[in-house]
């Protein structure tokens, strides 16, 4: 199992002056896995990814990337590519020139992928010869991904790659990442939204103010039983509200307006449905307000659900 880890970090601490950006963080990323890093703004995601890219050195802790221990010096081992805080592109160059300049930087024989090939993979073939200064954020993200693909990485590090992506762009990016993972590349990507990562990641690490609050497979996160908010649409809202108020374990979580939102653990919710039906109220719709993963994320990172919704 050990040999299949692309990243093994333990006890990583990084401070910027008084700010503790990372506080004893452990992270393991399997080769061929897509690992999500989630957390609210300022949680330390970018800092952690920067360490993986060799942009900074941890104050404490040990970090091993692609089985190479990372020392005190900047610069990550070969085989790592990606970007933090937005892709770096030169607006005066076209998409193709940006990639060509990067390929030339690595030199011939460095095993770079074809420029047309990576442009095609991220769906930018049509704008390959346009200057990057006209690109939208989503296009820039995709070009940044193409630049990373150019180096045929074995560890791909992406910071908030889905920012600014339209659904089509997202599909492209997800397709590329899934294919890379299938080929054995480890992918670490961050987001401040859990729902972003649900479709893509096999494992997630949730960070909050520099600490790991959860790490493991998505299934494990969802299985953890906790109270969730559910929206209920019924044939008789007023009656439903009365029934809900009388059901043990169920709390009314809305503001008394038209829709009914209750907060309850699953057994209490089951009981509520039985009682509603018994009282002759038809249940037309029952759904969690946020996905169980998102809810777990919000609970773990101490964020009120209302703020994020």
């Amino acid at each position, binding site marked *: 199992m050990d040999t299949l880890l692309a990243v093994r970090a333990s006890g990583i601490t990084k401070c910027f002056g008084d700010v503790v950006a990372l506080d004893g963080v452990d992270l393991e990323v399997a080769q061929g896995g897509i690992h999500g890093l989630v957390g609210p703004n300022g949680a330390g995601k970018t800092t952690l990814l920067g360490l993986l890219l060799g*942009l900074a050195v941890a104050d404490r802790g040990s970090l091993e990337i692609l089985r190479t221990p990372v020392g005190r010096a900047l610069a990550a*081992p070969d085989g790592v590519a990606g970007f933090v805080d937005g892709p770096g592109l*030169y607006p005066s160059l076209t998409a193709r020139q940006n990639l060509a300049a990067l390929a030339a930087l690595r*030199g011939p024989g460095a095993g770079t992928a074809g420029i047309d090939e990576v442009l095609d993979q991220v769906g930018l073939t049509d704008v390959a010869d346009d200057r990057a200064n006209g690109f939208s954020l989503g296009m820039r993200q995709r070009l940044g991904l193409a630049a990373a693909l150019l180096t045929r990485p074995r560890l791909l590090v992406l910071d908030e790659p889905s920012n600014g992506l339209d659904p089509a762009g997202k599909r492209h990016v997800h397709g590329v990442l899934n294919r890379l993972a299938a080929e054995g590349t480890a992918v670490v990507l961050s987001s401040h939204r859990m729902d972003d990562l649900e479709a893509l990641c096999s494992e997630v690490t949730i960070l909050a103010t520099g600490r790991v609050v959860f790490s493991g497979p998505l299934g494990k996160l969802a299985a953890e039983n906790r109270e969730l908010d559910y929206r209920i649409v019924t044939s008789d809202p007023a009656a439903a509200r009365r029934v809900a108020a009388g059901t043990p374990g169920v709390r009314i979580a809305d503001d008394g307006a038209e829709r009914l939102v209750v907060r309850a653990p699953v057994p209490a919710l089951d009981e509520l449905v039985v009682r509603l039906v018994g009282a002759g109220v038809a249940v037309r719709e029952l759904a969690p307000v946020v996905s169980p993963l998102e809810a777990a994320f919000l609970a773990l990172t101490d964020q009120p659900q209302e703020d994020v919704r």
Partner: protein
Amino acid sequence: MTTATAVAAAPAARPVSVRRVYRFELVKLVSQWRIRLLLLACWLGPALFVAAVGRQSTLPTDTLFGRWMHATGWAGPLVTLGFAGSWALPLLTSVVAGDVFAAEDRLGTWRHLLVAARSPRRIFAAKALAGLTVLLLLVAGLAVSGAVGGLLAVGNHPLVGLDGRLLAPGDAALRVLLAWLCALAPTLALAGIGLLGSVALGRNPMGLLLPALVALVMQLAQMMPLPVGVRLALPGYAFLSWNGLFTGPAQLGPLLIGVAVALAWAAATTLLARLLFLRRDFTNPAHDGSGRRAVALGVLPLAALLAVTVGVLAPAAGGAGSGIGQDKVQRSVATAFAHLYRLQTAELNRPDVTEEQLRATAACDKGSSSVEPEGPGNDWRCVVTWHLPGVDATGTAVYQLDVAPDGRFVADGDGPKEVNGYFLVRTPTGDAPNPLWQFDGNVGLLPDPSKG
């Protein structure tokens, strides 16, 4: 990529060679419209300007050699140099050197570049070299363009030096080349200041303006009545001291000192910039420079450098004086007058006389008689006396002198009319410009070694 290869340990980071990063930097620089326009302007502008002046009746006489632009093509590149030293070169270094580092801050591409190139040291070297390359291209453009424009529009004729002597075209060409090479040294110093500002101040526009600002301050300083030692210690002095190449004998002392000081500044500022760059935190996108401490770190050593150079140069430069003494002024004026008198004689088709026969001397005084005749000012007055073979009487002519603090002076003829009082002389073939009417000269600021 299979799991088998993935399991193998990755090789340690392999930094990209400086040569490749250099090429990458050049590609980025040359892809900018700003740089392309500058290149075009530098390679075409001076030629057009010099050619245009060659066809006009008025001459830029307030710029050194401007009054000879109708006479020879070699005046063109020197007028360009005078102008470049005060305006074009500081601005060019600002745009090029000041921007090579700041551009990455503006675009937020530092981390990208660092991941791609993997070595801050090499990035620094490559960026400095790429900036230098573009700067050299721009300077070469200015020099070549000015010369080509002049040669095409006016022609390859002898140039009148600052001592009135005629320099053969080949000699003039060589000196023009040397003058431009000397001006490279202070350009490099400004470029180093640009690098430093760019590294220390990041996105802050002050970083970009720093070379231009420093150049402006140095120009203002050169206009003030400073002691010679301080004047020479300023890194921009070589922008002026190339004048010494066109006097006879050449005033090489101030020139070499100016070049050496400028190169010392270039080296010091570049090293400081490198130091700051390597200490910098690349993870912070909001970072716009290394902060106040970095500024202090950049400024203090330079202040020390200035203090040391002043300390070294002040005794050699003859203490706190202005370096402009009565003796030197008299000799400069007399020498230039004698050379130019021969020029006028030839124009008038009179029999040639030699400088030895003329035995020209000048008696110069400054202001009212109560004032010590020393230092810059526009109240110098010289009476030039000369002899003609076979004539008992001596000729005299009066000049009003405006002597600048850097030693350059303009002598304005005050009569008699047929010698130096009028801007034209009547020659057998019609009116021609009078070389004795007004002329430029230069007083060496350093103590004269030939004089005990």
